[in-house]
């Protein structure tokens, strides 16, 4: 087990051998696949182009743990979201990933949307979800007193939840590495020389050549480009940008549920959702682009979000904005994922994981391992994974700065460094020494919340940076 960031990746852990499986792409999907493979006595590597896990779409989403009520019935996505949602909820409890089951309300603002609600309830049933409930306008306003005027009613989906999108892939990667997976970061795969029947594939990375018997493409937005390295042209990924605005924690009391738009003729609309960090998020936009690196925000996008947000929750716009970001969904023109096994190539593509991949990740991990087995990979016996317990980043669960016993044992947990988010020296020290340590201040933020708060570093930025660069003394 190891995490490497430089040097030629050690592709021959056993004399003369290659990896059994290399998973390319350490987003939430690739990490989940690597973790699932780690249950078996296999030599597995997770290979990632950037310097950290979860640096792609997985770091910039709306962080909702879906029930799958509105998926297209009968699709793989529908099944993966339904199964993955349950698996992740259980996994979160076991490993300390913060989840809050706040429930969702699909709010109807006109007669057309109101008329659509029973159809959505029916679709939910076809997706195996039976707990939706219609709410009258009066019931809706009793639930959400700060909602803007003019809502006509809602459909309640009580099991929609919010989850920490940063801890989730980190937990998978941590558990995979602790269970024996090699994680090679800063290691983009640039060329694949497919092996013959008895020969392993040779992956040419920027850091050297890796050999593997089986190969998994979990490249997110670049899944089509990676397919092309193996001569496959099954689909094209079109990035669909989603800009998001995160409001100050003082906005949290304005909203109790995830407020979802009712999809309709006028497009998809935006949602307002609490975050597990105690903020409120508004977004996302949906813009079809061509540039897979276009993760910037735009003046038009932000203005449109604010206009929609003001209508849904007028008080929201009176609060300060804490963060603005944008993520790219991997749209492929299909109303489903693009998952395919290519047994002749000992290769599985897990692509087109568009806007539900966080929820579906654990189910996709299982499904991919089944596909690998179907393609000829001998899994061998299953063994328990190394245990993990993640540091809690959620507001709804105990945080170290208030824990008398913890501080008595180690005063570093009583030394707050990032005051807005109440992140202590002990938590920063732990993150820097963790199994998959951060490679940047952003990586440290995603592991601790340091510098993620309303001051954005005015008070603590220099101190956090010094701890990151000089280490905790």
């Amino acid at each position, binding site marked *: 087990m190891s995490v490497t960031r430089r040097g030629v990746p050690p592709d021959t852990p056993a004399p003369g051998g290659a990896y059994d499986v290399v998973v390319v792409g350490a987003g939430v999907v690739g990490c989940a696949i690597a973790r699932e493979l780690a249950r078996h006595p296999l030599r597995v590597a997770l290979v990632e182009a950037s310097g950290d896990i979860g640096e792609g779409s997985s770091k910039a989403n709306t962080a909702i743990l879906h029930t799958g009520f509105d998926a297209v019935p009968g699709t793989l996505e529908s099944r993966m979201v339904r199964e993955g949602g349950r698996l992740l909820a259980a996994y979160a409890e076991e490993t300390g990933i913060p989840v809050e089951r706040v429930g969702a309300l699909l709010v109807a603002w006109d007669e057309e949307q109101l008329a659509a609600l029973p159809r959505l309830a029916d679709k939910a049933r076809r997706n195996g979800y039976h707990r939706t409930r219609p709410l009258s306008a009066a019931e809706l306003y009793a639930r959400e007193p700060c909602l803007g005027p003019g809502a006509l009613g809602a459909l309640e989906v009580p099991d929609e939840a919010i989850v920490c999108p940063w801890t989730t892939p980190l937990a998978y990667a941590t558990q995979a590495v602790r269970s024996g997976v090699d994680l090679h970061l800063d290691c983009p795969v640039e060329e694949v020389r497919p092996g013959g029947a008895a020969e392993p594939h040779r992956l040419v990375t920027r850091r050297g050549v890796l050999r593997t018997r089986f190969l998994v493409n979990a490249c997110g937005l670049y899944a089509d480009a990676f397919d092309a390295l193996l001569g496959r042209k099954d689909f094209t990924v079109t990035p669909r940008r989603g800009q998001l605005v*995160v409001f100050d924690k003082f906005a949290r009391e304005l909203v109790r549920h995830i407020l979802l738009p009712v999809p309709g003729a006028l497009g998809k609309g935006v949602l307002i959702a609490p975050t597990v960090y105690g903020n409120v998020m508004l977004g996302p936009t949906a813009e079809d682009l061509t540039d897979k690196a276009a993760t*910037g925000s735009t*003046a038009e996008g932000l203005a449109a979000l604010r206009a929609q947000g003001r209508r849904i929750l007028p008080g929201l716009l009176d609060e*300060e904005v804490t963060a603005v970001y944008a993520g790219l969904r991997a749209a492929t023109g299909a109303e489903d994922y693009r998952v395919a096994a290519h047994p002749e190539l000992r290769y599985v593509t897990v692509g087109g994981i568009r806007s539900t991949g966080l929820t579906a990740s654990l189910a996709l991990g299982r499904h991919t391992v089944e596909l690998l087995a179907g393609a000829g990979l001998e899994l061998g016996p299953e063994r328990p994974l190394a245990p993990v317990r993640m540091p809690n980043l959620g507001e709804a669960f105990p945080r170290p700065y208030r824990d*008398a016993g913890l501080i008595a044992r180690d005063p570093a947990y009583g030394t707050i460094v990032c005051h807005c988010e109440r992140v202590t020296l002990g938590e920063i020290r732990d993150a820097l020494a963790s199994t998959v340590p951060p490679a940047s201040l952003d990586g440290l933020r995603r592991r601790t919340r340091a510098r993620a708060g309303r*001051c954005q*570093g005015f008070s603590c930025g220099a101190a956090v*940076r010094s701890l990151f660069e000089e280490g905790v003394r």
Partner: protein
Amino acid sequence: MSDGPGVPGGADPSGGRLERAVDVLVVGGGPAGLAAAARLAVAGAGRVEVLERDRAAGGVPRHCGRGGFGGFTGPVFARRAVRAAVRAGAAVRTGAGATGWAGPLTVEVTAPTGPERITARAVVLATGARERPRSARLVPGTRPAGVLSTGELQQSVELFGLRGGRIGRRAVVVGSDPVARHAARTLRGAGVTVVATVADRPYGPRLGGGPVLRGATVVELVGRGRLSGVVVRGADGRTGLLRCDTLVFTGDWLPDHELARSGGVPLDPGTRGPSVDPGLRTSVPGVFAAGNLLRGVEPAVVAAAEGRTVADAVHAHLAGAPWPGPGVPLRAEGALRHLSPGRLPVGPAAGPAPTVLLRPAERLPAPLLTVRQGDRLLYECRVPALLEPHRSLRHPAHWAVDADPTGGAVTLRLAAEDGTVPV
């Protein structure tokens, strides 16, 4: 962890949280909080304790390594303020941050010695102000490294000794206030080239050495990983790319009102700081506020003077003086951005004319100041000075005695020379 006398109290058996009581708890060890604590301790207010969440007390001046603080450099000003408070007998605790409330006058604290609950007879909030960050300014573009505020820049240079490439090579400063000049000077002193200062206002004080683009705004950030440039729209509406790896957003102050607000202390709609009367009493009996928390940045000596003002009101409160009524609210209109304090006792209760700080929204040559209560004109006067948006005007409210305590809000209005309000 304590610069002052030892900490009395006993452990709370249930949660392991230390429960303690003091006479005055001052939250924030900057110029305002320290001045309040020094004066209260000298006056024999009992146990006066200052909580400072940073490693050292002194507040912002600690990392302003230059003159302009009542004849001293910032760090010297900060040290003198700490020494004065400690000598007077106040307990100045560092590394101890107030994180919330457990009761009307009970503050939750985290320190390396453990969590505490401190109950006080009076709580003075002096938590300062911060600059509005890039995100809250809704400046579009990517999210690269190299984007910071003056506060972070000054701490990086003055407290952590970063120089040159550790900060960046080419910097752009954003802002029209004197703090933009301070940021540029700090950058140059650290060996960073200041490419330009982008000042949204077309006029203003002298700004940092490099070129100053007046009436210009940053409309987009460019670069992944590290900032590579900013798109600037000039006064003429044309846009261009300035290559830089560092961008410092200065000014645009926000009161650090988190603790005040989470304790249910009502805010002034204009300043977004706690609503206070001239004694700096908030609307919550026993809770006071002073310094930049009230309305963003004023010079350190002003914050310190407010610390002394609040000390007198705290002293009276401890001696049993009744908590005064709210007084009448003051509202800012026209080219007046905000004012403080935002509530005044008027009529027979007015007392000697309290000073109201008026902050103009624009540059105003000799503007007209009018004060009305409903339809009644209380005061009108041409201000014989050039007002600037980065400076406050001290206005003695002689008219307070003439106002009606039951007559509702008093509006103060600034208008340009010709009577119109500039937009």
